[in-house]
């Protein structure tokens, strides 16, 4: 039974990773029509260097992800501390309000943003993308930091205060250092959410300002080329690296008791 279970897990992993590996391998194949036999080449990666549209959209993606990570982490951490440490009337309603950005299909949220930003004159482009991405990332930050906060005992802060510390000083010198891994994890999470976001970006980007996933999508719609495989490989490895760092810092599966 155990051997069968292990074999099944192996099959699931093959299912999850095989298409990705095939896609990556085809980015190193010489034929522009993905024809076999396989001839190793890096020319598609070299070609990327000349594709200014892809490069600028890639830079846009990283810049937006960085801004999103910083803004969403600061705002979300503040909200998580308030929700976790203070007595608030209607707390469950406030927590419930975090769900729509996660639970409503992105297609609906994205088109709603498009309609609203158009109607109010906010428009599309970089600022609109940042508005949308931060809104999507905030609930995740609140959840990740809130979970981290639960493992930190509130009486440590009270002990500091009973010894003469001010509440603000007690928070910054006791709770915040203990919370740092969760906050860092949340920031990486927000970065990854923004970097991989396609649907919202698709509706909010302009022909002059796009993100990498939007650019990849329009390239796929035009036709498959190994250049898409090359840039996809870079994007995939990049976000996997971010998530692995996240897993190391925040250890979403592990439970550490911080005392």
């Amino acid at each position: 039974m155990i051997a069968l279970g292990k074999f099944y897990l192996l099959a699931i992993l093959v299912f999850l990773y095989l298409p990705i590996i095939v896609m990556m391998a085809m980015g190193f194949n010489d034929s522009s029509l993905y024809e076999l036999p396989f001839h190793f080449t890096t020319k598609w990666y070299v070609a990327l260097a000349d594709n200014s549209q892809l490069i600028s959209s890639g830079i846009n993606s990283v810049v937006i992800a960085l801004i999103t990570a910083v803004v969403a982490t600061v705002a979300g951490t503040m909200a998580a501390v308030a929700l976790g440490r203070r007595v608030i009337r209607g707390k469950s309603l406030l927590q419930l309000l975090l769900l729509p950005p996660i639970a409503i299909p992105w297609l609906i949220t994205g088109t709603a943003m498009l309609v609203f930003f158009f109607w109010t004159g906010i428009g599309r482009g970089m600022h609109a993308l940042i508005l949308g991405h931060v809104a999507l990332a905030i609930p995740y930050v609140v959840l990740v930091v809130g979970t981290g906060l639960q493992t930190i005992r509130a009486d440590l802060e009270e002990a500091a205060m009973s010894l003469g510390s001010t509440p603000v000083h007690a928070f910054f010198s006791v709770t915040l250092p203990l919370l740092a891994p969760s906050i860092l994890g949340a920031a990486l999470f927000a970065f990854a959410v923004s970097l991989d976001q396609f649907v919202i970006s698709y509706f909010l980007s302009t022909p002059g300002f796009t993100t990498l996933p939007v650019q990849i999508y329009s390239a796929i719609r035009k036709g498959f080329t190994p250049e898409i495989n090359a840039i996809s490989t870079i994007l995939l490895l990049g976000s996997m690296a971010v998530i692995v760092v996240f897993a190391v810092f925040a250890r979403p599966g592990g439970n550490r008791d911080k005392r």
Partner: protein
Amino acid sequence: MPADIPVASTGTPSGVPARRGIPGSVATIALLLPSYAWLLLAVFLPLCTMFVFSFMNATPMGKTPIVFTLKHYQAFYTQPYLVKIAWDSLLMGFWATLSCAILGFFAALALARATTGRVRETLLILILLPFWTNGLVRVFSWTMVLREGGFLDMLLHSVLPDAGSIGFLYTRPAIVLGLVHGYLPYMILTCYIALVTIDDSILEAAESLGARWWTILGKILVPLALPGLTTGAVLTFVPVIGAFMEPRILGGRVGVTMGTVIEDQFTQAFNWPLGAALSFTMLAVVLAIFATFSGVLRRNSGAAA
């Protein structure tokens, strides 16, 4: 945790212990304001605006006078082809969710019962890793496998050199396959969380009393994993119903779903009110399905307890 706040604060709703010094309610509001103001501006106001738009007769761009109407919500009567598309989308969501549930439940079971320690931790991370990578890129990967002369055909031809193509890119099963690939990690995670808490002794007791494996599966494992299965199903079904990029890339011409129809209204047809009405209809259907399911779930967990 709220329970950690000293008892002194009971009775005063915005009460924070006096010794904290800062006026409690002001500080609380200041902490909450950035996040909730942002969500208001970027999520809730847009959704409200779109709801209003869904009752307008035309996109308020030109000089056409705006009249409020219900006609877009009657689109399913006036444009019967939408009913078929909606039904196809629901079926697609159903097959994708069911496949995820079956594959994911057994993967979670194998993870919880057949692995331990570091192996289990590593496997869990490996399973979840693709989920947090770009969905678009993963869907694109399947085109490499499924297209004519793709990886699938290559495998077949290495065994049977004269066989035809078995690539099924641009079909409905291809869309479902891409969706299952996208959401399976979520289902494995929610089922795993439910299954990992099951005490070994329960299963040992059942076994020692002569229960066969299918009895253990049907009477213990599935009922106890039901909350995880339901959560996973909800988390899969909602995005799948709104999917438009997967059907476009993997479905080609047959990939017409509610998602693509709605997207068309905003990017091609510029009929925003119709797109908005279809979006809210879809949202209502999704919510109705959840309401039904949560009732079933509550009854089941009540019976188990």
